[in-house]
């Protein structure tokens, strides 16, 4: 007897079912990652214990299985974050093209440090560790997972202005 309690909407349940159907019948764990991504997206960009428990119950797996995954992959946030996620690639190719300057410009502009969200909760400046695979467009950033490449400080200002006014 497993606990089947969950708090997903009918729509969300359908989406999870669809993800579930990509994998063999007895492999419901496989659906964790993509499900967590859509659940997180639906919950202002972060996960909490209740959502993790819900997914575990929905997929009839252990809660710790979901939690292990949620804490391993860097795109999952276990705390509330700002609405728009900015990830500036600071890896080597971007670093050579002054990505650090881009980061400090954004920090100054948004009055936050890397890893923080703005007071008005509009922006979250992620401490991106990974290379975002746009090395020939360095320096680059992703805002809400859309790439902006060959950045200059002016270009960054323009992009952030547009999003802030959205």
């Amino acid at each position, binding site marked *: 007897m497993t606990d089947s309690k969950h708090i997903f909407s009918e729509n969300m349940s359908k989406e999870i079912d669809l993800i579930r159907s*990509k994998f*063999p019948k007895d*492999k*419901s*764990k*496989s*659906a*964790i*990652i*993509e499900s*967590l*991504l859509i659940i997180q997206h639906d919950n202002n960009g972060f996960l909490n214990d209740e959502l993790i428990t819900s997914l575990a119950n929905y997929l009839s797996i252990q809660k710790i*299985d979901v939690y*292990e*995954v949620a804490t*391993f*992959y*860097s*795109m*999952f946030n276990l705390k509330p974050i700002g609405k728009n996620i900015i*990830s500036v690639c*600071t*890896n*080597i*190719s971007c*670093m*050579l*093209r002054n990505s650090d300057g881009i980061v400090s410009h954004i920090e100054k502009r948004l009055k936050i440090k890397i890893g923080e969200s703005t007071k008005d909760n509009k922006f979250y400046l992620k401490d991106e*560790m*990974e*290379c*975002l*695979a*746009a*090395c*020939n*467009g*360095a320096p680059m950033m*992703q805002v*809400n*997972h*859309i*790439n902006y490449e060959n950045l200059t400080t002016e270009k960054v200002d323009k992009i952030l202005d547009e999003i802030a006014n959205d």
Partner: protein
Amino acid sequence: MTNLCTSTFSLKNPSSIETYLSQDGYSSWKKIISGEIPKSEVITIIKESGLRGKGGAGFSTGLKWSFINSSDQQKYLVCNSDESEPGTCKDRDILRYNPHAVIEGMLIASYAIGASVGYNYLRGEFIGDQWVVFNKAVKEAYEYNFIGKNILKSNLCIEIVPLIGAGAYIVGEETAMLESIEGKRGMPRIKPPFPAVQGLYGKPTIINNTETLATVPYIIKNGSEWYKNLGVNDSDGVKMFCMSGHLNKPSVIEAPLGVLFSKLLDECKGVLDDKKLKAVIPGGSSVPVVKGEDIMETPMDYESLMKIGTMLGSGGIIVMDESTCMVSVLERISRFYYAESCGQCTPCREGTGWLYKTLVKIRSGNGDQSDLDLLNKVATQIEGHCICALGDAAAMPVISFLKHFWTEFEYYVDKKQSMVI
């Protein structure tokens, strides 16, 4: 310079199935399905073409396919689109500009190894662009019945399923990817057993890189000899080179293997602001760095790069000019491997942090000569002692940076500042 994977890149609506079909796309798949090319020949063609894995390891693709456990059981194909080796940005372009080549390659590979399902695992950060494009392409291919049930009335059924990750470099390691598809933490498995024997869900599985699979339809279409001859000298075929860093025009270039580095540099209009070339990391950040002058006239192929003490890796070529502080670059590289270590095996979990912390210490002016020796020692202690290659990937840059730029590091611990500022 040579267009296979990149052949649709400059066309209008490059990702659409119509564009791909206009380029004779899916003709290889149709030939195979119709029996024009017998199943048994597919692996032979790929083997003979000399195609090698383009994700980094460079293992013969045809040979890999032939390892598949041929017993009558479920088998899987996995396409590795978790492109995340720093300096590498080729698969992202294939996925968004030529997704149908990936699909066709996956279909051919699945058929050849007897898999009824092919998963394409895209890194999580591709969710905004490549993920959308690739899903759309798969949908189109289903509509054309290139994928799915009873493909082109052949009774053959192959499903192609896009999957998305959620941010973890290590998942690019093939067994970590299998773990991730199984819904677990991306922790590499011990080998043997190799995936071709026991892979996804314990079933025989072949994992190939996106570029590798996208190349397959072109080889089937034009034959193994054709592909072989595209290369230079002993290096068969082509490779996508991702030129980044201090360049006037950073670009992704598909070129014959064995092309001279200087030629690629020319394609990128030379070093940024015509400064002097200082160093190059030729295969993604985990391969050993080499001095600029040592690589300038080196042919970009597996063997030649090995000769100068480095590797072709993923083809991510990072170019550094004379203004580059090698201590800072190494610190950034170390930070990356420290952050991306999965944490399961001791040398990597503990050692990558040690390397990074020591480099931070040096960079902040608190290091001394003994810390340089320590870096070498710790890197040597990690190298070859881990389950997967991430440990080596963290160790190799340290060892090579210290080897080639020892004086610069010495200067830093001595003067507490960079030699290049």
